Each structure stands twice: as C-alpha cells, then as structure tokens.
C-alpha cells in the first residue's frame, strides 16, 4: 500500500508548552475547568438521586479545602473562558455592517463582555431570590 504521504513538518513534541502556542493551550485548558465543574455538579446530582446520606457526603466534600481550592481554579478558568470567548466571537461570526461600515471587532468583544457581566449579576440575583 503506497498511499499519499503528505509532508509533515517536523515539530517538537512539546510545542504546545512554549510561546506563542502556550496561549492557545491555556485557552483550550479552560475547557477542562468548564467540563470539570459540570462533573462536580453531576456527582452531586447522582448522590442526590442516591439519597440523603450520599448527598450529605457530597456536601461535605464541597466544604473541604480541596474542593474550595478546586472551585477557585474553576472560577479562574471560567473567567479566562469568558474573556477569550468574546475575543473569539467577532472572528467566528459574519461581519456586522451598520450603515455601510463594518462594526469594529473590539466593539463586538466589548458588547459581549457587557452582556456576560449583566448575566453574571442576573444569575447571582436569581440565586438570591431562590434563597429567600
């Protein structure tokens, strides 16, 4: 079998750990925080379905310093995700034309970040309202 053999430029195996690629690697690592947080919630939901003893054990884990440190990392990851998500958004969407002029990319990023901040506050308010 002699299939096509495309030329592969030799690359160092740890290319992703060095600048300028490190920035991309860190951005993609926010996905670990997002999925990791969902996994914590899923274990909580499974323990909730298993009964009160299992659920209280999960609540106990949430109170541990390990969990608090983990959630602090998740929080940093989430903030980095919000930031990069709206940096990417104008690059992935069609050009926004208003009155024959292209809307600058950083305007779209700024608008996205404002919406994210409003959503952040709304989520906190809704949670506070649920608590009452």
């Amino acid at each position, binding site marked *: 079998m002699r299939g096509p053999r495309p030329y592969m430029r030799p690359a160092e195996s740890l290319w*992703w750990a060095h600048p300028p690629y490190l920035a991309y690697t860190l951005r993609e690592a926010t996905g*670990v925080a*997002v999925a990791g947080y969902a996994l914590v919630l899923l274990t909580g*939901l499974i323990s*909730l379905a298993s009964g009160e003893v299992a659920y209280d054990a999960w609540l106990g884990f949430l109170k541990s310093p390990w*969990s608090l440190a983990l959630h602090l990392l998740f929080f940093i990851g989430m903030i980095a995700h919000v930031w990069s998500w709206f940096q990417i958004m104008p690059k992935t969407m069609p050009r926004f034309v208003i009155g024959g002029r292209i809307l600058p990319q950083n305007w779209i990023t700024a608008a*996205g970040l404002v*919406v994210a901040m409003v959503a952040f506050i709304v*989520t906190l308010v809704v949670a506070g309202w649920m608590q009452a």
Partner: protein
Amino acid sequence: MKRSIAPVFWLLFGVGGMLSALTGPALVLITGLAAPTGIGASPDFMSFARATAFAQHPLGKLILFSVIAFFIWHGVERIYLTLRDMHVGGRLTLMWICYGAAGALTIVTVGALAIVGF
C-alpha cells in the same frame, strides 16, 4: 462527498460555550464557594430538601440538564481538539474516547434526573 459529523459537535461546543460564558462564573461562585462556606449564602441553601425540590421541578431539571450536559460537551470539544493537536492518539481513537465519554455522561445525567423523581 461524505458529510462531516463535525458541525454537530461544533454546535454543542458553541451552545455550551455561550451558556458557560454567561452563567459559569456565577454558578461556580454560588455552588462551589458561597454555599459551602456560608459566605453570602444561607447554610441550608443546597440542603437535601431544597436540592431535591429543585431537581424535581421541571425548570430545575432543565437547568441542571443544560448546565451539566452542555458544559461537558463544550469542554470535551476543546479537550479533543487539543489532544489531537498534541498527537496524543489517532483521530478516531480520541473521538471515540472524548465524544463517547460526553455521550455516556449525558445519559447518566438524564438517568439521575429521572431517578430524583418528578
């Protein structure tokens, strides 16, 4: 030409990405930091009774499913693409592992929400 299945995963990635960009930081703050420490939240905010009532409510179920499933599909897409770029494994192997895990966890989420009851 064979149609690519990639757009399906990109859609899930996008939904999860937008949902987590809008609600993720606040949710981590509430469930992971405020509620367990009692700072800015009452100690019984996530008690068994309250959590059960939330998970039994249709809207609560929708929120739990959306957050868990879409966050996982978003993260998995990034993990899959990064592992592929790192040449950790073959494309198909990584696809099966990453998307397979996300699919299995989605089913587990639905199952757990059903067991919690209505």
